[in-house]
């Protein structure tokens, strides 16, 4: 990977301004062409989709994406031509819809360089950055073809035990993009449910941009259960309700399986079909996030997706095959 040479620049600044609130457009402006980007969330949960749409509308290109298990977020960026290298551990739609069509297509065409990683390798590379050291050792991965794929990994003999260990270099993403349930104006973030790799991403990245379902006071944030990511890691944040749609952001809303199915059907055939039936109507020709929300069905959709907590039957109904 281009920036994984163990040389991190060190963090000589903290983000201390009193009010980090920004528009979605300004938020996306922190991502530059060619950046190494760590996208938060995982699989069908808490993907920062509204920011990704904004990046696509801004025409961002040549991004390297780095992370663990992802789905529609990476597939969409690949389908929009924004990615030139993928260092994720998984990109797909699980048993729900299967392989990720745009990701596959762009990797197989050579437009996206395959630089797959593995979850613990990723964790250790982020930890190296967080701890200010050039690498971390791991025991695993030797004997697999990840060693061939990543010539930047080195082996060493442990000076204490004589065992051979694999050294994986520090990775310092340019920007972490996170969608959390709550934040305050200062930039403190509260993630509810599985944090996936978001906290590691926030601590290891040069900048953190975040969308939240709701901006509340710091007191309310603490009443809700406390801060997951302290404000000084966070560069800017924006309140964007339904900002993770069609992935889930509980307790606000569940995964939108029907919309994901629509996305998948548009993507599976070919790139032109995807552009015409998804990218243009739901991303490129969309004026704002509010415009997106009205295009996906407005309040009716939010009401349906927030019905998960009525009872188990209501929750289960959200996963029934679309009629």
């Amino acid at each position, binding site marked *: 990977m281009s920036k994984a040479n163990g040389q991190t620049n060190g963090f000589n600044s903290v983000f201390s301004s009193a009010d980090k609130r920004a528009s979605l457009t300004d938020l996306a402006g922190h991502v530059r062409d060619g950046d190494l980007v760590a996208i938060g969330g*995982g*699989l*069908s*949960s808490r993907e920062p989709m509204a920011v990704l749409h904004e990046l696509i509308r801004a025409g961002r290109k040549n991004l390297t994406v780095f992370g*663990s*298990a992802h789905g529609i977020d990476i597939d969409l960026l690949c389908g929009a031509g924004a990615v030139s290298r993928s260092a*994720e*551990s*998984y*990109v*797909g739609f*699980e*048993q*729900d819809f299967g*392989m*990720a069509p745009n*990701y*596959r297509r762009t*990797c*197989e065409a*050579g437009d996206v360089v*395959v630089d*797959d990683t*593995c*979850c*613990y*390798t990723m*964790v250790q590379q982020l*930890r190296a950055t967080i701890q200010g050291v050039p690498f971390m050792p*791991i*025991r*695993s*991965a*030797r*004997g*697999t*073809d*990840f060693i061939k794929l990543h010539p930047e990994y080195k082996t060493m003999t442990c000076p204490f035990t004589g*065992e*051979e*260990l694999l050294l994986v270099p520090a990775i310092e993403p340019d920007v972490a993009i996170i969608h959390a349930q709550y934040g305050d104006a200062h930039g403190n973030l509260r993630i509810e*449910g*599985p*944090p*996936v*790799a978001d*906290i*590691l991403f926030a601590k290891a990245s040069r900048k953190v941009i975040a969308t939240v379902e709701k901006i509340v006071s710091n007191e309310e944030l603490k009443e809700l259960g406390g801060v997951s990511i302290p404000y000084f890691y966070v560069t800017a944040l924006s309140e964007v309700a339904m900002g993770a749609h069609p992935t*889930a952001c*509980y*307790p606000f809303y*569940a*995964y939108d*399986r029907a919309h994901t199915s629509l996305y998948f059907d548009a993507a599976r055939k070919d790139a032109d079909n995807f552009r015409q039936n998804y990218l243009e109507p739901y991303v490129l020709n969309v004026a704002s996030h509010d415009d997106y929300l009205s295009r996906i069905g407005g309040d009716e959709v939010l009401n349906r997706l927030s019905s*998960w907590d009525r009872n*188990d039957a209501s*929750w*289960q109904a959200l*996963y*029934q095959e679309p009629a």
Partner: protein
Amino acid sequence: MMRNECTFGETMIHAIAQTIEDNTLAFHGFGSPLVQLALHVAKKTHAPDLVLVAGATYGINPNPPFLTPTSNDWVMDRNAEASLDIGELFDLAAAGRMDRMFLSGLQIDQWGNCNVTQLGNESLKLKLPGGGGGCNLSCDVGNVTLWTAAHRAPANNKSKRRFRLVSECDFITSLGHRSREGKRPAELGHRGGGPDWVVTDLGVFDFDDEGMMRLKYLYPDTTAEEVLENTEFKPVMPMNIETMSLPDGEVVSIIRNLDPLKIHEKELSPGDLNRTFH
């Protein structure tokens, strides 16, 4: 326990559950409904003190109301006793505290190496989704159960078969008992014991002392010939191959209660949906 009619999917879940021991810590990955159900079956039957760690949410001992097709979902994390984060989960494995994990692949070779990264070894022919944490875990975890519901490899119209159980993986995503250079995991200094079971739609395998896949059980409706015909390498074939036991009524009802949407059937080949046993 009374024997009900059971489906092939339920039998496969039962077979995977049989590889899970009580008083151990086991972790299922994501996108694997058969394995998710097997862990819940094991915990509700022969392994009540199993430490069940759910994939994607890293919740411990959750009790989901129903199975979803998405693993990182609050449904799957419901009523979990505690939760781990991603670092802690993989630290557990690296430090030798994780006893069992479950891996699969579009290619699985005779040593139990798996490929979920790409087809084509010189040039990329088909990009697969990737292995998640499987590469690391295959080296670190006590033992690994491999599974695939697509062992059967029917010939295409050019009478060519695309085998799932192959002589050699195009890419080794997760390590079995031999690296490409022929090294055993212990020689590489890995702490994990590697795969000890392979559960497929045609039978159940263990591994011999050399680390080669060995046919152990057939299902009531499969034969050794079928296994050989659908496997690119020749597995070790012992003199006596037993018939895999069937799930009892309790196991069948646990599965049906937990998976009313029949998510696990998405993993099965269309031809296996109508297989039933009595």
